[in-house]
């Protein structure tokens, strides 16, 4: 996976320009990362409304802490960790009792605040798949599956972003694949009767 880009310019280059104090560059960087950060926050928290709030917080923190990015890791990795930290803080702020799904998803109530958005998705199959994704997979499996199979990062890159070993990331990935693919195949009409 190469570093995501906004238009033709890699985020690293944008970040480097923003680090020089170029406010326009920062605004471009903030705009460029927003959708990605929002996606990560959604997968991590399991709640679209929380994800939007987390994404806004990350933009603020990005402005405040960009100078701390020293280029030792890829910008994407650094940004992911910033997002994870913001998501954790956000959920803690909402109270453990109400938001206990961050560390281990699996409860149907994960969707309570997000249901209206899910119901508006394109088709019923998609709705069922997304519900399953959030309700049946633990947060860590969701994150690894999303990063590797849907967004194109390698398991090693996902491990670095999540601060876990690559082999652990692969174990999460295989479990997530199995769960999601079984669900997909089960939804296929006459998928197993033909053989």
């Amino acid at each position, binding site marked *: 996976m190469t570093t995501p880009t906004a238009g033709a310019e890699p985020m690293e280059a944008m970040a480097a320009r923003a680090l020089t104090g170029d406010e326009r560059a*920062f605004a471009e960087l903030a*705009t460029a990362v927003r959708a990605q950060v*929002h996606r990560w926050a*959604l997968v991590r928290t399991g709640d679209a409304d929380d994800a939007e709030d987390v994404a806004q917080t990350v933009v603020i923190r990005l402005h405040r802490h960009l100078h701390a990015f020293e280029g030792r890791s890829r910008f994407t990795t650094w940004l992911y960790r910033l997002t994870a930290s913001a998501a954790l803080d956000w959920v803690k702020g909402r109270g453990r009792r109400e938001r206990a799904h961050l560390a281990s998803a699996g409860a149907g109530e994960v969707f309570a605040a997000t249901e209206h*958005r*899910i119901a508006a998705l394109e088709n019923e199959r*998609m709705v069922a798949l997304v519900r399953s994704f959030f309700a049946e997979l633990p947060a860590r499996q969701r994150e690894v599956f999303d990063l590797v199979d849907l967004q194109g990062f390698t398991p090693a890159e996902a491990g670095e972003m999540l601060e876990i070993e690559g082999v652990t990331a692969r174990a999460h990935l295989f479990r997530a694949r199995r769960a999601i*693919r079984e*669900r997909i195949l089960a939804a296929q009409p006459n998928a197993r009767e*033909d053989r």
Partner: protein
Amino acid sequence: MTMDCAAARALLLEAEPAELRGEADSPLAAHLRACAFCRRDADAILAGEAELDAALRALATPSADPKVIPLRPRRAWTRRIGPAAASVAALAAAVAAVMLARPGAAPPPGATAEQIARLMFPAPPVARAADGRSVAVLETSDPGVTVVWVY
């Protein structure tokens, strides 16, 4: 075809996407290139995962693209009254400045909050932070709500 369908099905559940597409150099990929039944399952998995990706993208679409306008800290005129008071004062001043700048834009009687907000904020307000602090102006999907964050 050296792999039977039962073995292929077991492998399908954990296979790499390239294998599912039949592109890899592996027994499973070879089986998928030759077996229409298993090929159909592989295609279903790929399509389902693409749908999941599209759904997550849709769910993660911000309700509005905020315009973040971080401004350089300026020399403080409020240094003596402390950071917290400075934040409040700066925000109040920014709002007041916008209101004062549009003396003729009085809302009609019975105007809704949204109408009033549109009169007050036809464009994002420009805010300046006190010394050592920053400010961000965030537009939201609600035209009546603009967030001014002094930190």
